[in-house]
């Protein structure tokens, strides 16, 4: 059995761990607030962009001259999975759940005889996917050195995706990220971004405004589609960021609570052992005195 001193040391180390997880929880909470407001600040732009795109695109889609980013290549043989994960762990199942969703989708596609390629954003997803899909990973972007997520980061990723699309490397691109629902609930989500899925305008929306276009519709659309891609990626990154801190916060909260539970148990055992030893010593003294 462990000596009393060993037990004391173990309790002290559990307490130290608890302090660390508590601190991490607090840091995550404050970062979460910032990430959340950044995600909210990006929302009006993305919403307006959606509205304008669906307005123009619903007219242009289906017509033979529609840009490939909207109409697709006409095939769906090669799929690119753009998997956005966090750069760090210690956040519960946050990274794994995104990777799991992407992996399941990949297996389904492979079973259908399609070809799958991966584009990883974030270190954690890359490390997990590398184990099973090493050869299919075509690119990996690390955002570790980025302190404040800016639109430029998303734009850089979008450029790489478009360059590969124009080189004919894939037909369909799907974006995987974690949508931030609340602090305790993050939803891994798959969203198809190439070709763009345009929601049909609601039938009861009333008479549609007929816009004048300057320059021509096609030209605006060709300008807008790559931008929209960057906007979608940017939104995914921001949502991911908020989700990450939310997941980390609840994971660390759990860890702190578990450490507390462990300290309670260890202290109980420690006290019992201590009392048993005192009783044993007393018995020894008394029986010794009786013998004399």
């Amino acid at each position: 059995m462990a000596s009393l001193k060993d037990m004391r040391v173990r309790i002290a180390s559990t307490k130290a761990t608890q302090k660390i997880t508590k601190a991490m929880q607090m840091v995550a909470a404050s970062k979460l607030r910032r990430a959340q407001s950044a995600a909210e600040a990006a929302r009006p732009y993305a919403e307006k962009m959606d509205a304008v795109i669906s307005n123009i695109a619903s007219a242009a889609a289906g017509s033979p001259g529609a840009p490939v980013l909207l109409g697709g290549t006409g095939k769906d043989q090669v799929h690119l999975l753009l998997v956005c994960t966090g750069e760090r762990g210690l956040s519960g199942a946050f990274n794994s759940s995104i990777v799991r969703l992407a992996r399941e989708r990949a297996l389904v596609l492979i079973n259908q005889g399609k070809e799958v390629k991966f584009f990883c954003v974030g270190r954690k997803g890359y490390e997990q996917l590398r184990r099973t899909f090493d050869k299919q990973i075509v690119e990996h972007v690390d955002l570790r050195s980025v302190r404040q997520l800016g639109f430029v980061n998303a734009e850089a990723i979008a450029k790489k995706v478009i360059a590969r699309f124009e080189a004919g490397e894939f037909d369909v691109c799907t974006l995987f990220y974690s949508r931030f629902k609340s602090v305790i609930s993050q939803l891994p989500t798959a969203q198809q971004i190439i070709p763009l899925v345009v929601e049909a305008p609601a039938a009861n929306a009333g008479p549609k405004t007929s816009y004048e276009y300057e320059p021509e519709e096609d030209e605006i659309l060709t300008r807008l589609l790559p931008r929209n891609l960057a906007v979608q990626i940017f939104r995914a990154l921001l949502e991911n960021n908020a989700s990450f801190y939310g997941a980390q916060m609840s994971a660390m909260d759990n860890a702190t609570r578990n450490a507390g539970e462990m300290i309670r148990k260890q202290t109980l055992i420690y006290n019992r052992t201590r009392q048993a030893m005192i009783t044993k010593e007393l018995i020894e003294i008394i029986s010794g005195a009786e013998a004399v």
Partner: protein
Amino acid sequence: MATFHFDLVSPEKLAFSGEVDQVDVPGVEGDFGVLAGHAPVIAAVRPGILTVTTGGNHQKIIVLGGLAEVSEKGLTVLADVATSIDELDRAEFAETISGMEAKLAEKEGSELDHAIERLDHFKSIQSQLSSTAMH
């Protein structure tokens, strides 16, 4: 004078939102002014200076490309970057321009044309900036 609603949004934030009298937008095919009751238009925006007029006050905002939409609800400008003229770091802006000039040599074909066009827009913003600074 009748006012209308104007939103200026960039990917990172909502830069301006409110009732205004007039907005002058630098369009790709020339500048245009928007007043209340303007016909619905969707126009691409080139890098330039956007002027917002409210009750006789002029506010100048630098936008680096984007899209303008006029509907019956008002004007919405989706700007790639929107900076108020007072907040702009002129030294940094000049640095961006010289950086773009340096990169020109690497480009060719239509990409070069685009780069030159963009550079021209940036330079015209800069010259407008320095001319307003003198007043």
